[in-house]
């Protein structure tokens, strides 16, 4: 389970998150919505340990353990996964090499045996098949020449292989056509389980029709300003974020 307590984050000396509190219980899916620039990606990045994102106050606890002091790779080995809003291209590093290195690095850190080549290939083939990812594509450099939608599917493939206990999805729906949205959502839903938590960042109700959240939060100006059930997303779709501007002013 994830507990974010009174989190304050600065980027380049600029305060972005101002005392954010959030609890996601095991097995739950929470959605985070909020206007552009409100700090959603900042929250995702600070959880994953991106350099330059400095937590000046507060804690991020994963099953009771504060992850803020850990390196990014240790956080990943501890079960945190961030699906990037903008997945990066890494020319010259074949996707297969990348997947295998990541998977084995995590296993090693957890004291598990590395996977043999046939074991690994079997896993990838299965997971890629479900996401309709062509194996030939995985021989290319990581995300190199992938379409926007293919990049997002590749993020979900990584998530499926790494089997994290906390998934953070940053606008995984952006750039997806209707069919791809369905494939990706199905991929995410398959990973829903009683001992896995998910934090889904999105602007659109559309994604939440597929990945139905237990709880919806509104993030504005670096804080959670409203929390509700899945119907809150529908409300926002109708009314927009204007109603929270006052609360923001109040909060800051």
């Amino acid at each position, binding site marked *: 389970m994830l507990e974010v307590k009174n989190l304050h984050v600065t980027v380049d000396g600029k305060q972005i998150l101002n005392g954010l509190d959030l609890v996601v219980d095991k097995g739950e899916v929470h959605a985070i919505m909020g206007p552009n620039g409100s700090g959603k990606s900042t929250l995702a990045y600070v959880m*994953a*340990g*991106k*350099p330059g994102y400095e937590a000046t106050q507060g804690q991020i606890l994963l099953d009771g353990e504060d992850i803020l002091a850990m*390196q*990014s*790779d240790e*956080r*990943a*080995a501890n079960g945190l996964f*961030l699906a*990037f809003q903008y*997945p*990066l291209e*890494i*020319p*010259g*590093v074949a996707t297969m*090499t*990348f997947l295998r*290195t*990541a*998977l084995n*690095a*995590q296993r090693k*850190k957890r004291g598990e045996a590395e996977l043999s080549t046939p074991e690994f290939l079997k896993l990838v083939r299965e997971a890629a098949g479900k996401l309709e990812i062509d194996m030939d594509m995985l021989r290319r*450099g990581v995300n190199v020449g992938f379409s926007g939608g293919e990049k997002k599917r590749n993020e979900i493939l*990584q998530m499926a292989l*790494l089997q994290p206990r906390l998934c953070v999805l940053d606008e995984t729906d952006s750039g997806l056509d209707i069919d791809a949205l369905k494939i990706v959502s199905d991929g995410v839903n398959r990973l829903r389980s009683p001992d896995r938590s998910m934090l889904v960042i999105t602007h659109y109700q559309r994604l939440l029709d597929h990945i139905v959240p237990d709880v919806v939060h509104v993030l504005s100006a670096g804080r959670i300003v409203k929390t509700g059930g899945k119907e809150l997303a529908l409300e926002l779709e109708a009314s927009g974020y204007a109603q929270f501007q006052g609360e923001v002013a109040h909060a800051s």
Partner: protein
Amino acid sequence: MNAEIRNMKTNAELALAEAYSSGKARLPGGRTVVALREAAAARFDALGLPHRRVEEWKYTDLRALMREARPIAGAPDAAGIARAKDAGLRIGDMEARRIVFVDGTFVPEISDLTDLSPGLIIRSMAQALAAGDPLVEAHLGKVVPPDREGVVALNTALMRDGAVIHVAKGATVERPIHLVFAATGQTPASVFTRSLVVIEAGARVMLVESHDASAGHQVNTALELVVGDKAHVDHIKITGGPSDLVHVSSLMASIGAHARFNDFAFNIGGGVVRNQTFVRFDGEGTLAGLRGASLLNGKQHVDSTLVVDHQAPGCQSREVFATVLDGESRGVFQGKIVVRPHAQQTDARMMTRALLLSDEAEADSKPELEIFADDVQCGHGATSGALDEDLKFYLMARGIPETDAEALLVQAFVGEAIEGIEHAGLRDALMEQVVAWLRARGA
């Protein structure tokens, strides 16, 4: 003025001139060779060792970097040969014919001259010089002689041995030929090797040179390469060695029409390394790839200088160089492309990239285009920068530890150049050396 410069000769220049005058009687070669050496010695006397005021050497002040000249290596003794027994024995799983030179002298006992395929002739340069070999008489010193080149002149004056290879018209040499240059002497010495490779029309061969030397050595090596029409030649040079090694290498290649020439220089050792390459297109419709990868650390200084001379129309040249710099190392790339007036439809590109792993490292690049034809495509690019932090974060966010993430990115960086090597086994072998270099760095 001239007299003044003469008076300012360095100890190294004086010692080299003295080595020539006192040793020339024992150097191999008949009358024509003696004349060639004499002329070269006179040129060296006039030019001296190159220094920073010589434009082509402005980043590599050899005169300052080589204050003293080492005595010239003699023929190796049994112990020296024994030490070189396994030199260059394996390059990954590449199965090559090994021709070994120890301290600059051909050593038949540890070389493989058996079962030469039809049309392939290999002999030692010392023998060829002494015997007045017609191939040597026809080409030596005549394949793209660079102007004002003190180190090439010095090589010609003092050349002792090397390989002379002839591949007959239309012959395909299946097994790569690996020229192993190992200087194993226990006291620092200087070594002058000179090779000549003539590949006739339509022939095909892969040539690998590997160079290593023991502490304090000074190596001056040169290769003249004649590539006939429609021939297909791969040339790979691997340079390693201790951090106090001075290695100066000159490749002079003339290429015929509709040929393919694939050159790759891999630098993974040495102290001061200068690889200079002079390539001339003598016939139309030829493709040449000139690539290289260098991994530098400590105070290493590696200079890759290329002059690509398009003298014929419709040729394509591609230069791709990748340099990884750690510690206080320095990497230099100078690329000059000349397109002569009638060399229309030339397509020439060069790209050099430097990856700086340390704040103390420095990369310099100097591209030069001299274009006298109007219907051409020429381009050059240079980049220099540190590892991409965002990419590193992406890898680490997937659980890959920092040093492994850096290693993956460095491999990807040099991989682009290494991909240009056609032989898969050699490609893998060089990548393994990159991985070993990275592991040593992380340790």
